[in-house]
């Protein structure tokens, strides 16, 4: 077992078999997490550095927990506490950390392609934990796992992704992943929050939420960032709520009755989704979060196999 690759940079370059392997391994990991003692010695001796150049709570904590559950040693490095403020380059920072014999670097950075840039220059494996508006592969893997648990088959599922598609790395990775698994995707947002170019993604688009809702199996709701109003992508949050907020009433009127709701978090209650829906029977949101640790354990495990086997390095 293992992935025949040094890094996990994006869903773009994963095959559907690799996605399946990561998810199958994640199911084993979930079993570990259900044991009374939620820890395995699998990655003992492996050192992981979490390099976060952007604020994060759930992704960072879920990686930290995944590392602990597998008995890896880990260090956390965040931009606020780093030498970046003193003018050190990203590459120098990463090389310094690598010099401490780190095997895996989990990187979140605001610049698209930073993990790719580092991966070409480092011996250590690089896991992309979100690079600007580009990709967030582990989040997409978590979402695909959540969907797999709730539906017999992903192929043919009708999924609407609603919200700020233009600036969302989650939506890019998710679209790439779900396409590989054969789902049918519609994106729905005001035109300013949709890219002008959608051909590379192979998705349908719909400006009107009322038209996007009918017949969908899953509504994947993206967080609307308040800055988008200051940047004039939308006239006001109030207007966004009027047109795009997922409410009970809209679901009752337009959506199929067994539709489910997903959201990568953190939720703006009352903005992109009506507060009580987030906690309702429609919602898979907490199930997404609980898959998070298992998927990240799986990725860490599969990428370390090269190192642990000693066969490839």
């Amino acid at each position, binding site marked *: 077992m293992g992935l025949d690759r040094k890094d996990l940079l994006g869903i773009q370059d994963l095959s559907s078999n690799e996605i399946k392997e990561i998810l199958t391994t994640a199911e084993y990991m979930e079993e570990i997490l259900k044991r009374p003692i939620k820890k395995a010695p699998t990655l003992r001796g492996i050192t992981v550095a979490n390099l976060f150049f952007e604020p994060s709570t759930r992704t960072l904590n879920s990686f930290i927990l995944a590392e602990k559950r597998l008995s890896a040693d880990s260090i956390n490095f965040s931009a606020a506490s780093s030498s970046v403020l003193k003018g050190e380059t990203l590459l120098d920072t990463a090389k310094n950390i690598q010099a401490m014999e780190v095997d895996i670097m989990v990187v979140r950075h605001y610049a698209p*392609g930073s993990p790719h840039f580092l991966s070409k220059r480092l011996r250590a494996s690089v896991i992309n934990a979100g690079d600007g508006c*580009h990709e967030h592969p582990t989040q997409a893997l978590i979402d695909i796992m959540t969907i797999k648990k709730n539906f017999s088959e992903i192929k043919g599922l009708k999924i609407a992704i609603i919200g700020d598609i233009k600036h969302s790395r989650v939506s890019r990775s998710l679209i790439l992943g779900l396409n590989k698994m054969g789902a049918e995707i519609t994106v729905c947002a005001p035109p300013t929050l949709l890219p*002008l170019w959608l051909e590379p993604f192979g998705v349908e688009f719909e400006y009107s939420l009322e038209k996007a809702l009918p017949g969908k199996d899953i509504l994947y709701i993206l967080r609307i960032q308040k800055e988008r109003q200051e940047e004039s992508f939308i006239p006001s949050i109030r207007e966004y709520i009027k047109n795009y907020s997922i409410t009970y009433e809209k679901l009752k009127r337009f959506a199929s009755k067994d539709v489910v709701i997903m959201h990568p978090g953190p939720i703006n209650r009352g903005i992109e989704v009506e507060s009580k829906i987030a906690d309702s029977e429609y919602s898979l949101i907490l199930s997404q979060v609980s898959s998070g640790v298992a998927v990240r354990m799986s990725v860490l495990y599969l990428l370390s196999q090269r190192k642990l086997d000693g066969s490839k390095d």
Partner: protein
Amino acid sequence: MDLKIKNVHLFDPLNGIDEVGTILIDKGKVVKDSKSKVGQEIDAKGLYLFPGFVDVHSHFREPGAEDTETIETGSRAAVKGGYTAVCLMPNTDPPIDNEGVVRFIKEKSEEVGLCRIFSIGTVTKGRKGKELSEMSHLYEAGCVAFSDDGNCVMDSSIMRNALEYSKLFNVPIIDHPEDISLSGKGQMHEGSVSTELGFKGIPGVSESTVVARDVLLSKFTKGRIHLAHVSTADSVKLIKEWKTDKVTSEVTPHHLLLSDEEVRDFDSNKKMKPPLRTRYDIEVLQKAIKKGLIEVVASDHAPHPDYKKELEFTEAAFGVTGLETSFAVLYTELVKKGKITLDILIKVLSSAPAKIFNLPLGEIKEGGTADFTIVDLKSTWQVTSEVFASKAKNSPFIGRKLEGNVKYCIVEGKTVFKNGDFINTEK
């Protein structure tokens, strides 16, 4: 007679010269015959002699950033690439907005003694876009054109005044067409590739809207506009629509050859302004030089040290080097592949830029200035980061195997570059 070059393939499309023969040079000029003793003789069998190339868009970083490039290293890069004359953009520190800097550059380039160097003065004081610079003083000190370089003149009334005032000297105002409110923090061409990669885009309209303004202001004022590094099909369309003898333009080798697909590897040597556009834009640009609609190929040689390029893409500086690869990459990719003729390539590199910038250069004729480039068209070489004479290595063409190797550069009848060696004519 100072120099005799024999058995050489003389090639000058402007004067219809395409023959093997001998050329005689005395006191820096081409002469028909001379009875005096031959000073130096070059047997250039199998080589082509072209009018020396003229670059109208280079950055040598001196004064201000001598760790990046100097007039000396930039000049070396120029002659290595076959350029016998280079016009320097004024984004130095201090900028070329006063005669002192023009004189400094002139003295420095004479000390270096390789290619000819001309200054481009600023359009506005400090390149700030607010007040016109003292163009008359700058012109008399030797400036051949005016430009605020990477700062587009955003204020249209300043642009209008610049176009009118520069009629005093009949020199072009060079604009870098970029509406910064549209390009913003963009990192690459806005299109399907930037969408996939998650980059903020620099849309084509950020260029073409300013091109439209500039060509219309030129029509209105009858002033001369020269559009720097045109990169989009829409810009070409606008130039075609409003072309007059007052409207000229240039394109770079990288915009003629590379598309935004190149950015997929996140290599910052593919990052520049304007950004690499689409394959369609490339096709249209190639046709535009073929038809003479865009008259000039300029290098936009923009050296940067590794610590400004070996970075994540969004942090890396904009700009790539070009002087050492321009001819060979265009010869290999366009002439050898039948996209344009050698005639066109030599024109866009020599006679056309010389004419637009009022330089008495760019042709082979009796009594004309003896600035020549002698090239072995059959010789191939590989672009690697070790080959550059420039201090910088930020070329988007690293790794390519190219045809066409510059063997000699002759400036005013003196050999300044010979088989890889630089010869300072002042020493």
